[in-house]
């Protein structure tokens, strides 16, 4: 236990390690960026996060290689794993940290996915998490039997029924029924174990589930939707919102909205945790960190990357423009095929282009400066102590319940944070010094899954 006195009002911080593993934020040109799908890289990242007593380790998902202007995109770090398969491999080299896979409800079926998540929860002794995404990108359909399908609203309907079905499966076979009484010949004490039936607009299935309830019963559920539909879905269904509002003022507005929705839905607002994804830059002083942040931003957003990102939003070829020159005007490009795969904020490209263009005009930004300004989130800057203060303040003032941190390199990006910032947070009494819960859910301070 920490010996430092906890100040009243200092709320405990939740921290996670994001492993985006295919992202413009990762500086792959840095010598510290290791092999992308090497098991040793993943083991380093997850062990570092566990050494830092972080709550969880989260993997992103891809269902296709990104394309740009009709060609495979080649500028960002890329090459992934099948998330759940990797997390099962990492479960065996860790003991406490939560393991969260991002998995689409659009291109999976409930029985198979519920079984895989239950397997992870059993094999990790209660540390499974599922970041539920709905796939909006019709181009992913080209890799699946289902093909490109489901309009926006339908995707949430499917996700909702998917989750309800998965819960039915996880609840269908209580662990207490596994008695294993050899002499009496009773492996289970109920011949109906696992029986379930789901008849709905999305799924019509029935039978018996293949696994008894796992230690957490249900994995910890995470969701990232930001639209009104998405927020409501989260309030109705999940434990953690992986939000995009890392900037504290925007964070407070989002936080207030979601917690109000939770109260209105009769849910304890503390039972839904809000965690923006963000990055940080550690320095010897605040000015040193700011200087490093600028340098790092220019390494994250290369000239080629800046042009490509602007092309995605502008919807036309800009390869004859200078990344360090002025931002070209927006035209109505709605008749030009959109390259897809990258739409920050999820807004239609033309509205987004207008907003970006206005900002570039107002702040007199070059293309590269604009892309840095609108895409990067070096939210926390300063010495380890200053960063610890910023995080503590953000959580105290309800900008967030905690953060999903992504390093600037992979797999070493969180090494310095764990070594220098985590002890500062622990000294402030806002972050655990030991894992105390038996499961991921308990470590988050969430109540057990309610009765069937």
């Amino acid at each position, binding site marked *: 236990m920490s010996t430092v006195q906890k100040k009243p009002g200092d709320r405990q911080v939740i921290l996670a390690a994001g492993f985006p593993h295919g992202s413009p934020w990762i500086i792959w040109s840095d010598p510290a960026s290791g092999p992308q799908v090497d098991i040793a890289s993943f083991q380093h990242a997850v062990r570092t996060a566990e050494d830092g007593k972080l709550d969880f380790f989260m993997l992103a998902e891809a269902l296709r290689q990104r394309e740009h202007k009709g060609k495979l995109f080649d500028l960002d*770090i890329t*090459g992934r*794993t099948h998330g759940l398969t990797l997390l099962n491999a990492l479960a065996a080299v860790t003991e406490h940290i939560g393991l969260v896979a991002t998995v689409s409800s659009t291109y999976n079926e409930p029985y198979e996915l519920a079984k895989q998540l239950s*397997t992870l929860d059993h094999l990790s002794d209660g540390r499974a998490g599922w970041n539920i995404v709905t796939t909006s990108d019709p181009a992913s359909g*080209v890799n699946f*039997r289902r093909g490109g399908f489901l309009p926006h609203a339908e995707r949430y309907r499917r996700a909702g029924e998917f989750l309800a079905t998965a819960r039915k499966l996880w609840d269908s076979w209580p662990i207490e029924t596994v008695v294993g009484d050899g002499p009496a010949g009773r*492996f289970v004490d109920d011949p109906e174990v696992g029986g379930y039936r789901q008849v709905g607009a999305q799924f019509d299935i029935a039978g018996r589930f293949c696994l008894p309830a796992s230690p957490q019963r249900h994995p910890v559920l995470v969701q990232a939707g930001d639209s009104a539909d998405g927020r409501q879905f989260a309030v109705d269904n999940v434990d953690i919102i992986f939000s995009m509002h890392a900037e504290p003022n925007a964070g407070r507005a989002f936080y207030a909205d979601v917690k109000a929705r939770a109260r209105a839905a009769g849910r304890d607002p503390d039972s839904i945790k809000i965690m923006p994804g963000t990055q940080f830059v550690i320095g010897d002083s605040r000015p040193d960190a700011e200087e490093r942040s600028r340098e790092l931003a220019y390494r994250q957003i290369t000239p080629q990357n800046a042009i490509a990102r602007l092309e995605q939003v502008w919807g036309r070829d800009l390869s004859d423009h200078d990344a360090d020159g002025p931002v070209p005007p927006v035209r109505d490009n709605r008749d030009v095929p959109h390259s897809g795969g990258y739409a920050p904020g999820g807004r239609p490209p033309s509205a987004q282009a207008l907003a970006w263009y206005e900002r570039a005009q107002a702040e007199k930004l070059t293309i590269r400066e604009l892309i840095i300004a609108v895409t990067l989130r070096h939210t926390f800057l300063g010495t380890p102590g200053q960063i610890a203060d910023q995080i503590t303040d953000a959580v105290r003032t309800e900008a967030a319940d905690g953060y999903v941190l992504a390093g600037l390199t992979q797999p070493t990006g969180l090494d310095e944070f764990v070594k220098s910032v985590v002890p500062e947070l622990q000294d402030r009494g806002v972050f655990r010094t030991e894992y105390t819960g038996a499961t991921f859910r308990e470590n988050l301070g969430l109540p057990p899954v309610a009765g069937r």
Partner: protein
Amino acid sequence: MAIPVPLHLAIALDGAGWHPAAWRTAAVPAHAYFGLRYWADLAAEAEAARIDYVSFEDELAVQSPLPTGRDDRVDLFRGRFDAVQLAAGLTARTRHLGFVPVATTTHTEPFHASTAIATLDHVSTGRAGWQVRVSRNPSEARNVGRRTIPEIEPSGVASATKTRLRAELYREAEDFVEVSRRLWDSWEDDAVIRDLPTGRYLDRDRLHHVDFTGATFSVKGPSVVPRPPQGQPPVAVLAHEHNAFVLAARCADIAYVTPTDEHDAARLVEAIRAVEAEVGRREPGLKILADLVVFVGADAADRKARWDELAGAPMTSDAAVFVGSPVELAETVLRWQAGGIDGFRLRPGSHADDLIAVTRGLVPELQARGAFRTDYRSATLRARFGLTRPENRYAAA
């Protein structure tokens, strides 16, 4: 001096073992079957004996003696992990052992299955394989809900329909393996270039669309997972019927057969070689492993009799059932091998007794005769089977 023919030994792990009553006398608390340690101990036991690989069964349903799944037995072992996920969980607890889990092709997405197997190969640095399985079970079809498989019981289905359905499911499996192999090849080994002057992480010309169109699915690709360490993890097929022989001969590396004795084993080897010729398979030929249920040890016959009595009926199996001492099993193994079998996938009657009798009885007996390896020498599962790393079909000639 004759070069000894390498013998391959795999062990099929499932539940408490393959006898339905094996769990009843095992000193294993039932909850332990649903934790990592139980399986890690079995894998460690197999690895200590230098076994080629372990396999895991999988269905999209709970185990049941009835194809509909609607039985009311409480005395049978039930509950099974996702096989690929379980294998992944054991990779960090082993260094040499191979893993060949079942993944079903009938109701699943080829993209997910191929990336999961590729990932298993990455996390095990080249020790993954995949047993392709066709599902004809109505209960699995009901659990997934994507297509209907006619119920065989109780009403019965016209045999022509059944025959056609079977052929279709096997053809789909062949497409599934083909598209998986293409996806594994869709990243060339040197696709990541990290070229600073041009800002390119990838050479996009070294990634390839697979552009597969089949009767039940199409996949454009490329994969999202870089090429696995083995290039293409070995693919196995359990072959009881002609459809499966054809599937194996066309697209697998390993075939499991279920001979009744050594003569049948030799006959099956001949039959498979004939199908290989028929479909124009190129070298290397299939590695043919015989599936065999084994009860091993001085007390094997008594144990089996006791379990049969507890289960209410003698154990039945698609594979032959061996009961005898480690020496007798070693002799059986060598006799079948002389008939052309490349190795065995042993299904222990129980893990608690028969797995141990295999690893600590059979294996030392074979080693003493110079018939089985005493140490692991190859880094990958393919290499263990004498298979080279395949050329990438998309790499520029």
